[in-house]
């Protein structure tokens, strides 16, 4: 036996179920493309202030070097950056730990970051973007380094004489790779900043739905009987709520807050996860290793979350990746209807803008539309591959 083969065997021995599924999921091309897109999206979302910013990244003013863009970091920027660092740290630490433990660590650290960032990060309330361009043009800095796209998402280019709605790469003092929108802001910059909404909505909405779904579904499945009956009725009630109208109502009452929208999407879309979890728990609680756990007198917590849940989570993971895609679609729909956040850029909102303009400006529709399509497609590809990896019987490969 060659060394490589021995290594593989060793690897097999130590790997748990999650890493096995991950390996099989990303063995095919489709999932690899999907993952690549999600990674690109993550990088765009995390580094958007580095990639598209009117504020210079580095300047030297009379020999003194400073990074002015750091002062204008808002809460979101801080959370995304530290989230990325935490994620890298967890992945790269050599200590072996289970998927669930790493996930829990990530969630806890993120919660702390969110609280800390909200308390301590206080960016200047007003940013006059034109100032920076003016300063640079007047030669106030010895030298300066700008972001690759030197426009912020909300920089409406008031100092420019160009008319808004310029085509991509139109000749001008200020070149725009993807053109400008009706207020004169750079489309590419807005596209990059909007990737955050797409990324967070998927994870927050689905995360909330998943937690509620697992708890309610798990209790229903394990206890069955009257608990199951009541749970199912509750579930049916939630299923019969028209989400779009609920969102409209909430937007009307509480204003257009993107995070509120995420939470509402999460609170109303858990029924599918609850059904899956219930079915799995119903099936698994009669499994012999669960019976053995009961016979050993193990506490309920251990039976539910150690012996049943990890074995029943597989179909959930699949539906999660589809759920992320549908949450992104829901947000895009809302924004398209003009109910999204007013100021923060979002792909759905940009589509809405393209519709409202008097002429059809293709760059306002193609880029955000393409991005929504790619993102939903990517999650669906991953979900599909994961389903095949988890349940080989449904695989098309014989």
């Amino acid at each position: 036996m060659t060394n490589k083969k021995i290594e593989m065997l060793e690897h097999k021995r130590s790997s748990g179920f999650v890493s096995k599924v991950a390996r099989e999921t990303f063995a095919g091309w489709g999932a690899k493309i999907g993952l690549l897109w999600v990674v690109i999206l993550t990088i765009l979302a995390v580094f958007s202030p580095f990639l598209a910013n009117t504020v210079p990244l580095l300047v030297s003013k009379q020999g003194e070097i400073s990074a002015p863009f750091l002062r204008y970091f808002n809460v979101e920027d801080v959370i995304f950056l530290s989230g990325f660092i935490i994620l890298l740290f967890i992945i790269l630490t050599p200590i072996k730990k289970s998927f669930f433990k790493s996930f829990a660590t990530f969630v806890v650290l993120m919660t702390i970051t969110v609280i800390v960032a909200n308390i301590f990060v206080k960016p200047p309330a007003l940013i006059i973007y034109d100032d920076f361009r003016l300063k640079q043009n007047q030669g106030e800095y010895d030298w300066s380094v700008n972001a690759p796209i030197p426009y912020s998402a909300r920089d409406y280019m008031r100092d420019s004489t160009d008319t808004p709605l310029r085509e991509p790469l139109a000749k001008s003092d200020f070149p725009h790779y993807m053109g400008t929108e009706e207020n004169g802001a750079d489309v590419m910059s807005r596209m990059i900043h909007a990737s955050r909404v797409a990324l967070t909505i998927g994870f927050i909405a689905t995360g909330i739905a998943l937690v509620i779904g697992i708890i309610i579904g798990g209790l229903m499945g394990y206890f069955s009987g009257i608990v199951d009956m009541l749970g199912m009725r509750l579930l049916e009630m939630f299923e019969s709520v028209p989400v779009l109208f609920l969102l409209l109502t909430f937007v009307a009452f509480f204003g257009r807050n993107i995070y509120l929208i995420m939470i509402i999407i999460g609170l109303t879309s858990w029924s599918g996860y609850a059904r899956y979890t219930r079915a799995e728990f119903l099936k698994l609680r009669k499994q012999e290793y669960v019976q053995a756990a009961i016979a050993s007198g193990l506490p309920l917590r251990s039976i539910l979350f150690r012996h049943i849940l990890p074995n029943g989570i597989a179909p959930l993971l699949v539906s999660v990746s589809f759920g992320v895609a549908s949450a992104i679609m829901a947000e895009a729909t809302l924004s398209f209807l003009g109910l999204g956040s007013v100021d923060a850029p979002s792909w759905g909102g940009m589509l809405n803008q393209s519709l409202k303009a008097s002429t059809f400006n293709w760059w306002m529709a193609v880029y955000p539309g393409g991005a929504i399509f790619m993102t939903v497609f990517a999650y669906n590809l991953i979900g599909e591959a994961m389903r095949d990896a988890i349940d080989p019987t449904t695989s098309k490969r014989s």
Partner: protein
Amino acid sequence: MALLSIENLQTHLRVGKKEIIKAVDGINLEINKGETYCLVGESGSGKSICALSVIQLLPTGISLHPEGKILFDWAKKEGGSAIVDTLTLEDDDLRKVRGASIAMIFQEPMTSLNPVLNIGEQIVEAIQLHHPDTSDSAAKAQAIEAMDQVQIKDAARRFSDFPHQLSGGQRQRIMIAMALACKPDLLIADEPTTALDVTVQAEILTLMKDLQKDIGMSILFITHDFGVVAQMAHTVGVMKQGKIVEQGKMRDVLMNPQHEYTQKLLASVPENLEKPAKFIPEKNHADDDNVFEIKDLNVWFPIRTGVFRKVSDHIRAVDGVDLNIKRGTILSLVGESGCGKTTLGRAIIQLQEPTSGSVKLDGEELVGLSNKELVPYRKRMQIAFQDPQSSLNPRLQIVTTLIEPMTVHGIGENKEERIERAAKVLEEMQLKRDHLWRYPHEFSGGQKQRIGLARALVLSPEFIVCDEITSALDVSVQAEILQLLLEIRKKQDLTLLFITHNIAVVEYLSDETVVMKAGKIVEQGLTTDVCGNPQQAYTQKLLEAVPRLNL
């Protein structure tokens, strides 16, 4: 010329892109007209693949035959006969051979009939497929005749029954009727009685023998059970890892095996295992020292009907059982499937809540206690399960499975001590210490069963329910587990309730035997009495049905 002669058959299965498994590796055998050839071997020996190769039912994408011939003497329905090689036969001809000349019946009667067609239609379809000129009424008459032939009572009336209305044994009869409707020259039977109870198995085997006499067909019979071989075979082939290691006349092979593998297999059959010297527990327990005293125990499952789900009746899985389990004995609980033996086992250790009655552990009442109140008792009574695939949590390392119960019950001071104890128990089970750090999928069925037993034993219980723990295992592995159980019992003061349907295992292992039927105890007493001199008619019938090896 033999009816079927297989010459140097190789069947390879493709696994992944490059890997190839030689499932059948150079087999030679001949089946004469009117003869039964039994292919016997342990699971994974390639006996089913060999049968599927004959009838060409393996998926073409993953199977290949680099060498060999399967020569079949094909008596064509339109007259004349030819010797054909089923491996190279055209699809059209192959379809004519399948069903008409070579028929097959499968192991699982529950899934081999189409649930949405009634049984009559399915037989008629088989007939008309191969004899397209048969009229509907004639085909129906033939179908009813075929059902009569397999002793389905009142065949004309049952013609339009659906598969779910039949019992497992009846379904297997219908399968046989379908297979025989076209009067094939060769019948391939792939473990046709493995999923059935012994009494039903006995009926089906007799039926097959009678039909063979009437029609004069040959049978290729695949089984793992030497008892069945002794009943059915004219010729026997013993398979191991894709090769036939020994073949010959049935009596010669069974009475005077030449190959050491055959010898080992035959020695592992419970009837041939050397009966251990009668064991006397070290501490002499008084006759009335009972671990469990069970009085009038009932486990009823409600049957609900109507719109309001009113309870109209009960399924009495356990119906008024009185039983005392003496300390230090191995008590066997035997019965056919559905007799309530598993439910009784689970009700005793309170895994299944009894409807009424009393279960006393050392004089302390267990029925009616809440799950929390039961925790201290759980340590004293444990269970080991039948199915090696599902008895261990696939997501947990063995070490976690073993030490978690110890932690709950406060056995061992710290984690190291618990791991030490878990390792010791594993070694007692003849497993290795480093198996602790593996996941269940890395073990074979027999090893998983040992780990299942180890999980029960780490708590040092007084009482273990062994629920069909050897039923899913090959005979040689079964023999090892049984010997292991006896050894453990010798070391520890352990009481076992051994639930099984295998009478030979009962005779080998147990001190006392209880026979159950339809939730009630029919007969109980010392094993030597119950099995040697049964008093009740049901016990006698059960014992008669067991396929015996001694010729």
